[in-house]
Structure formats: C-alpha cells, structure tokens
C-alpha cells in the first residue's frame, strides 16, 4: 500500500527542508515519489537532484498543441501525456521526483487535468511513499491527483500568521474532494520554547501539535552554500526531529 504524505505551510517556515528530510528518511524504508507541487520548484535542490520538465509545462505545451491541431488524430492523447509525464520524472536510486510547476493559465484544462490525473495515478501506484510538497492553494492536490492523503503535515513558524495559514490550509483540504487521514502541526524555528500566545492559537484553531523544532544551526550554513539539505549531519536537531515525527506517525 502506498502511503501519501502532504506537507503544507506558509512560505519561509522550512516546509521544503522538512519535506526533503522526510523523503530522504522514507527512502531508507522504500521507494519514494516526491511531488514538488510548489510552483517555485526547489525541492529538487534540497534533494540534490537535477530538474527536467515540469508537469505544468507539459500541460501548457499539450494545450497549445491541441489548440493548433498539431496532434495526429489517432495518437491517443492520454497515452501521449502518460509518456511525457513519465519522461519528466527525475529518477534516482530510491527517490523519483516529479515537479508539478506552475498552475494553469487561461483556457480549458478540464480534459488536460483529467488526463494528467490518470497519468499521475498510474505512476503513483508503483511507489511505497508519495510525499507532496504543497503550494499554498493546494490546488494540485485536487486537480492533479485523485489520491487520498494519509498524513497532512502542516508546518508553521512560531507566529500567529503561520498558525493561521496552517489552519486555513487544513480547512482548504477539507473542502477538496481529497480524504485526509491524520492532520498534524509542526512548529519550526522555535527559540526558547513555544510562546504562550502561539500555544493558545494552536488550541483555538483545534490543531494537533506533533512537534516543535528549534532553529537548526547547520541549516543556515547549507543554505548559504546551496548544498543539498539531505547532507545534514546525523546530529542535526532537525534531522532527529523529523525521524521522531515519522516514527510517531507510523510511517
């Protein structure tokens, strides 16, 4: 059974770093499909993987070719998209990465998205884990996949804005067709314990706090050098916490 984990949160909370660490950790247990659904597309850097085409670009190109009537009538468009999506997959030893790219422009995407969902679902079932680094609107989850999400990890920093954004994303995913198993909150970049106001906000929003993580001294250094974040030393507090979270969620 494939386990699907979605990671969401306000920008600047360390969402992609946590996603990359979790992906790396899970790849020791099984084969992972990493879906970068954030249009700024930098999960590949964090994982130290190259970038090929994005699903967004493939979709735009496809819509354009359809518009121009350039596709042969008997070449089944679904199969063509299956091929292109498969081709855009960045394959490494235990982790494959699929960048989803920008959301769609104007025009009709009903058919394109329908076909993309099919392509992606076909690919996804071959993995032990799927980790989705979500964009704020979480539209990719509803439009490009029919998968249910087993765990939604909301990442926030210790700010009211971060917590509010996390709560909003929880509500948003509730409005989508996607079924979600557990929903948990991680507060990252905490200095000297969680402020009382933040703890209260978490309670008020009814969020389930699973971990607080303090600022990781190694991260800033890696970020400056642009080194893949998965090269964090084993004694990194962030690394240890992610392991702890994965264990407690039974992943």
């Amino acid at each position: 059974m494939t386990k699907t984990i979605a990671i969401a949160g306000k920008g600047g909370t360390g969402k992609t770093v946590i996603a990359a660490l979790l992906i790396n950790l899970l790849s020791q247990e099984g084969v992972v499909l990493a879906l970068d659904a954030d249009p700024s597309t930098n999960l590949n850097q964090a994982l130290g993987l190259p970038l090929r085409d994005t699903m967004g670009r493939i979709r735009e190109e496809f819509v354009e070719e359809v518009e121009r009537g350039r596709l042969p009538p008997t070449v089944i468009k679904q199969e063509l998209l299956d091929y292109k999506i498969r081709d855009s997959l960045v394959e490494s030893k235990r982790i494959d990465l699929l960048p989803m790219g920008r959301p769609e422009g104007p025009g009709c995407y009903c058919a394109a998205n329908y076909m993309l969902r099919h392509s992606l679902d076909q690919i996804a079932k071959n993995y032990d884990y799927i980790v989705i680094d979500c964009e704020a609107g979480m539209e990719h989850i509803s439009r490009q996949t029919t998968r249910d999400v087993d765990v939604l990890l909301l990442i926030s920093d210790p700010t009211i804005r971060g917590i509010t954004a996390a709560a909003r994303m929880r509500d948003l995913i509730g409005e989508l067709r996607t079924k979600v198993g557990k929903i948990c909150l991680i507060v990252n970049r905490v200095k000297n314990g969680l402020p009382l106001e933040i703890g209260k906000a978490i309670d008020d929003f009814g969020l389930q706090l699973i971990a607080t993580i303090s600022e990781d001294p190694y991260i800033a250094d890696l970020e400056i050098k642009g080194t893949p974040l998965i090269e964090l030393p084993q004694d990194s507090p962030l690394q240890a916490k992610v392991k702890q979270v994965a264990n407690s969620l039974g992943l």
Partner: protein
Amino acid sequence: MEFHIDLGPQYEGESIRKEDFYVEFGGSAVKYKFERATLKSPEEVEHEKVEIIGSDIKDLEEGGSYPLAILIDVAGEELEPDMEPVIERRIHMYSNYVEGLWHMAQRNDIWLRLSKNSFKKGLNSLREVGEIYNFLFTSEIPQIEKIQTTFITDEKRIEELLPSALEVYEARDARARELKDEDVDEFYYCVLCQSFAPTHCCIVTPSRLANCGAMNWFDCKAAYKLDPEGPIAGFPKGECLDPLKGEFSGANKIVAEKSLGNYDRVYLHSAFEHPHTSCGCFQAICFYIPEVDAFGIIHRDYGGVTPAGLKFSTMAGDTSGGKQVEGSCGMALELLRSAKFFQADGGRKRLVWLPKEIKERYKEFLEADGVYDKIATEEDVSNTDELVEFLEKVGHPWIKGEVELPG
C-alpha cells in the same frame, strides 16, 4: 510455449524504474526508434521467424539506452489494411504482458525497459521477445495466419527506415480524418465540464470533436476503455433522424439524460433550432451575424473584437453555461476541418469573418470551398458596415446567393 519469464495481463500496470532496468530502448534519450505492423502477402512472410538486425540484449552494455525498431509482418486471408494500426497497438499490450518488460507510447515515440530481474531469469535476447510476440499475436488474433518479427537495433538501419514509417503513419492519419458519423455505430459523450456547466454534455462523433478540442472520437474511445465508469462513455448512435442537421436518436436520448431533462434534441451539425450546448471550455465561438445572415468565428486567444465590437470574453459569457444558444455555438477550432462543419447552415461557405490567424491556419480548407479570399479579417474591416461593404466588393458567394443550402 516455454519462456524464461511469466506472461499475462497481470504485468500490465508494472513500471520499471531507472534503478531496476537492465537496458532501455527508445524514449526521449534515443533519437531513432519506431514500431510498425505491416500486412503482407503470404509468400512475403516466413511464419514464426524472428530476425535481429544489430546487437542483441546480451551484447549491450547494462544500464544503457538504445535505438530500436520493431517490425511485425502479418499475413492472413481475412486481414485488411485497416487492421494494421490495430495490430500495431497490440505490440504495446503484448509487451506489457511480459514479466519485466515495459512498453510506452507508439509509432516513432516508443520507450521500452527490460528489468534486471527478468534479464537474470534468462530473458536476455530479443529473439525470445519476438517468439513471445509471434505466440501472443497468433493465439489472440485468429485471422493472423502467418507472422514474422524483426528487431533492429542498428541505428543507421533504423534511420534509413524511419521516413517510410512516418509516411505510413501520416497516411493513416489522413484516413482517420476522413472517418464520418455514418462509418461508425458508436458515439461518445463527455461530461467532464459539468462541474462548470451542469446541463452540458459534449457529443463526440467522428465528424465532431469535443468543444475543448482535446477529445476526438478516438480519444473518447480510448478513455472509455480505460475508465468505463468515468465521465466519458460510449453510446449507440441510434437512428439517424436528420443526416444534414446531424440528429440521432441515441444522441437525443443521452442529451436528455445528461442535461437533466433541459434538452431532448440536439443537432450536431447546425447552429439553429437545437444547436449543441456549450460548456465554458470551447476554443472558439461560431456566431451569427444578422446584418449579412452569415457566420463568423472568434477564438479564445484573439484579443480583439468582432465586427459587432464584441470581445471573446463577452461573447463567451452569453454562449457558455450548458445552454443551447441559437446562432452562438462553442466549438473546437479543429471542427473547421470537418466536412460536416455546420453543414446544414451552409458550412464553411457561409463564413464571412475570421481572425486573421485562424483564416491562415485553415487556409487549405477555406480554399477548397472557394471562400479563402472572400472572408474578412480584423485587418480588412472594423465594424459591420465595413464588413457588408467588403463582402459586396469581393463578391462573397454566400452574399451573392451562390451557395445553396443542402437538402
């Protein structure tokens, strides 16, 4: 027959990752690749022969990507040339029946991977793959009396043969474009857009593709097969009630059901009385111009206005929403190629205004109907008065009364 690996449809969903393949053929990393099935006379086919031109799997370096052509030659009294593409598509299906063999796409886009596991089990030669093809093809398609399979891995040889394969594909596409409503018994409907337009139901026939342009009859056929419970499904076209307007009892029945009873008749090839509904997804709008009693087309990417001064977005608002709007029909641009393009109303010969880009794109078809140089664009006219003047000046056949409505 005995093979080193297992065979069966249970392997169809199997995917082979980079880490797990022994070799791959084709794909985007390889320039020359194709597959082709050819109907031949019995004396041209040596039954059950497998030939390999170039290196075999066991001679190739592990982990590499290589060129490949797969040629399936068949003979049989009951086989017809129309079956070539059907047989060719089976290469995909039968390859995926093979444990540890993965096949994607078709024609000159093929991509195959052989797993390390199956290689270890002994599937180390294309000869065995060929024997599997010969076995599966003859046991599943009884009309095939003789079959021979050729694999070419020699890049130069594939490069030489590719152009003739491309010609065959193109000829097939040309034939497919000629397929008409009367040639088939099954039509398809698509309700993908019902989240936007709950009463809209696209009827897709060989002569009419979906309004969005993304789904033609062949795509729908494939989609229905992939997901029989999905938003795209087939139905018997039923009785043809009006061949010119394109009214079919089967389509009427489906529209009544899927439009929640809002409509019970649909004309597939007319913009009047019971025109097809429009979702919000159409690529273009075919609109009636009362001043000249003729039609214009405006498409989504055109930023300007019609001679009446309307933008696409304004007109789309009045056309969309799953309504039947007489004289304002959402459509796919490729419908302009169809021989039945609003045929009951006069077809392409009744077009008087098009954005320049569209006029140029469909030049061939407009020329064939003798109207290419009679149609005004945004460069010729900027209002309806100028349009009337232009059409009189160039002598548009519709305006001159030279176009007879069929029927």
